[in-house]
């Protein structure tokens, strides 16, 4: 799936994927040597997904902001906190219907985003400043709502929406079968869609990639999907949050790579003046980027509430850094105009693997931060250097 939603399957995208695989292998070796099990233990893979779902969701939104010209959103962590607080008050304190509460929370996210987006896009206050203000403002409001206290626990029917597994946990034995069949269905759909697109291309006389390359690609992706599903099946089944992630990734991957408005983001980041003279309303693009970012943060907030089963005043702290870091590790340009959803997700996973691997190895949390900082820097340095090399031929 990741390979499919890449905007262009270029050298850079593959390099990031390669980095992810090598980091995983490196940890695997170290964990084995330390005798602490395996990074690829089914429980751990499941964990990895649950732990990092929020980063993936926010990285996708952040990518759109960054595409418009290297603009970032510092307020996302605070939005997670504020929306989480509202969810807590509505669901736990007032016992509101959870679906109604979810809709209210998502609308709140859109509203917060529109507020910031208006200043950024139409008044052209620098995003850094607007979202820095938002970061303070929203966290402040969240703490007012929470009164400095933690709200918990959330009702079961709410938790089930984000933290359960398919099939339900009491259904032992069926897990492997279910996750494998889901993987099989996905593989079949994928193969069919590739075949149809190839047939169309040939019929219309367009250039196609060689059959051998296509088959290799398809086999690799299917093999990966099945291996992945097997691991999940061996634990508790498919985490439901993975389904939400897949939906979000699919929508945004498609949006950025295949649609007209998606193209606008790249055009604006590449050369805003040229984009305007090509008839693109760049204010609208910017406004959408920030509104959407807050909307996705609200989704992340709902996921986090369920995962921690609480709404706390410190929720979402430094999430903005995770999201921004993922995009840059995933090859987004710090000047905008280039980057892919696939890259951002791989970046998020890379950060997740680092966290997870180092935790298993028992590395001190402070050192973990230092390592993540270095990785972020290394990724960007690599990006810059490889661009330079390509320029000089």
């Amino acid at each position, binding site marked *: 799936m990741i390979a499919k939603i890449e905007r262009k399957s270029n050298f850079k995208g593959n390099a990031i994927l390669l980095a992810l695989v090598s980091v995983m292998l490196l940890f695997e070796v170290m964990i084995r040597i330390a005798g602490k099990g395996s990074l690829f233990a089914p429980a751990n893979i499941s964990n990895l997904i649950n732990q990092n779902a929020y980063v993936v969701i926010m990285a996708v939104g952040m990518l759109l902001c960054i595409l418009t010209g290297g603009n970032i959103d510092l307020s996302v962590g605070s939005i997670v906190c504020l929306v989480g607080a509202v969810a807590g008050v509505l669901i736990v304190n007032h016992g509101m219907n959870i679906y109604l509460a979810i809709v209210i929370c998502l609308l709140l996210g859109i509203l917060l985003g529109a507020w910031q987006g208006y200043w950024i896009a139409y008044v052209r206050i620098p995003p850094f400043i607007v979202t820095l203000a938002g970061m303070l403002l929203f966290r402040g409001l969240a703490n007012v709502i929470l009164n400095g206290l933690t709200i918990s626990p959330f009702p079961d029917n709410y938790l089930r929406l984000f933290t359960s597994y398919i099939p339900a946990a009491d259904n032992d034995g069926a897990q492997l079968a279910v996750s494998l069949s889901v993987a099989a269905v996905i593989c079949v759909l994928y193969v069919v869609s590739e075949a149809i697109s190839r047939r169309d291309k040939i019929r219309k006389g367009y250039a196609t990639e060689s059959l051998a390359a296509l088959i290799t690609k398809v086999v690799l992706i299917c093999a990966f999907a099945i291996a992945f599903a097997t691991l999940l099946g061996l634990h508790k089944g498919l985490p439901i949050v993975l389904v939400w992630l897949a939906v979000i990734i699919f929508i945004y991957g498609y949006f950025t790579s295949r649609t007209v408005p998606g193209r606008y983001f790249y055009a604006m980041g590449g050369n805003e003046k040229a984009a305007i003279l090509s008839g693109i309303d760049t204010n609208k693009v910017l406004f959408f980027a920030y509104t959407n970012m807050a909307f996705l943060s609200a989704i992340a907030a709902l996921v986090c509430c369920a995962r921690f089963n609480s709404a706390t005043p410190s929720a979402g702290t430094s999430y903005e850094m995770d999201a921004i870091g993922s995009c840059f590790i995933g090859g987004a340009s710090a000047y905008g105009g280039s980057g892919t959803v696939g890259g951002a997700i791989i970046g998020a996973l890379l950060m997740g693997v680092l966290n997870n691997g180092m935790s298993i190895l028992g590395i001190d949390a402070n050192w973990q931060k230092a390592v993540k900082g270095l990785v972020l820097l290394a990724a960007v340095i690599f990006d810059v250097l490889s661009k330079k090399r390509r320029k*000089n031929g």
Partner: protein
Amino acid sequence: MDDLILEMKNITKTFPGVKALDDVSLRVKRGEIHAICGENGAGKSTLMKVLSGVYPFGTYEGQIVYNGRNCEFQSIRDSEKAGIVIIHQELALVPLLSIGENMFLGNEQGTKFNIDWNETYGKADQYLKLVGLNESSHTLIKDIGVGKQQLVEIAKALAKDVRLLILDEPTASLNEDDSRHLLDLLLEFKKKGMTSIIISHKINEIAYCADTVTILRDGASIKEMSRDEGFDEKTIVNAMVGRDVAHRFPSRTPKIGPVVFEVKDWTVYHPTYHDKIVCDHVSLTLRKGEILGISGLMGAGRTELAMSLFGRSYGTDISGHTFINGKEVVLKTPKEAIENKISYMTEDRKGNGLILPEPITTNTTLSSLYKIVKSGRRITIDRDLEIEQTKKYIAETGTKCSSHEQVVGNLSGGNQQKVLLGKWLFAEPDILFLDEPTRGIDVGAKYEIYCLMNSIVDSGKSIVMISSEMPELLGMCDRIYVMSEGRIAGELTQEEATQEKILTMILNSEKGRVKLHDSKD
């Protein structure tokens, strides 16, 4: 034996997928003006970038012998130390810094921790005088025109103690007067012993000033001609294109119809200096099937007029009326203009036209993405259709590229211009504004573009062409408006129009304005 200042031997330079230079040799004599000619993408700029260390030693093959010594430049800094200074095809001045600051950028006067500003501006003024530029060195770059900026670049080079000056298309965006001034300056420096290499597509200029001409074609040097053996415009073009270019402008029997576009009392103010009037009650008409020229000096407000008409993409406090086919329209954004089948091709391809890090495909289709959506869907782009369309326009404009996926920033200057043209042809407008459409385009390709323009108007569309090259306007246009200081100074039909008449109109209009001022005071 000639006294060679520079000899480049067997230079080969490859980019991924392209061999830009293939075993090229260049011999430059001390104290001469050496011209390099060739079609777009022939490798002229690349050769000069190799020479000046933009592409460091090791990224190319071959040998550079300068002043009898073998050179292995790692960076521009190295080549500058040796006295080789390059002025690039695209100007590289910082708009918000003053002339003086720009001139000594990277070459600051005084000590590292204490810049001597008196020395800086004092010296800057001296060099400005040397190049005949009548501006204070405190003036900001953004406040002077391109012609003057080009002179600042030269002054900057002089300040670096230049012995071999390389100019890559220095006159591409200059009008005739400014170009002539620049060339005379080179001739003067030549008398003082400076050597220069000049790249230009304006063959008359080369015939005017060069001592030797080297001709490149497809990355190979195919001919060297020297003044002693005799050359003129015709022989150079002949050697360059490989055939006779008898006519510079294709002929066309105009099929002119009714008025399709009309502007009345169009007034525009400057976007930052709100009391400065840029277009002053401009009225004009454009007919079906017509090529309409707008002539005028730099800063006459031609670009500003076109851009403000194109969905108010320039200026503030715009007033006036526009009519399409007799019906009044109000075009508030470029999007609305495009929807009404008006297009504007900018003169500033890097700044306003192209997205350099993106491939040719995305650039070509950007202004009309809805033409390549999958049938039956509203926003999904059909990549295959996009590629097919792009290929069509690459062929139509004769863009030389390694593939339709080549990043536009890697194309040669002239080929970028062709991509820009293709982009607006793809929009299939009824009314097409072309602002300096042939800037940086080689002689052969120019003819092709003129043919393209003719076929556009033959199919019943209309073109407004803004150009600083008067022969081009005279050769192509059915009618010419002369603009001066934001106003229409007059109108000439093709039969009436001559260079002198246009210049007189501009002059009279300026005089009239001065008188007006005098009587007011």
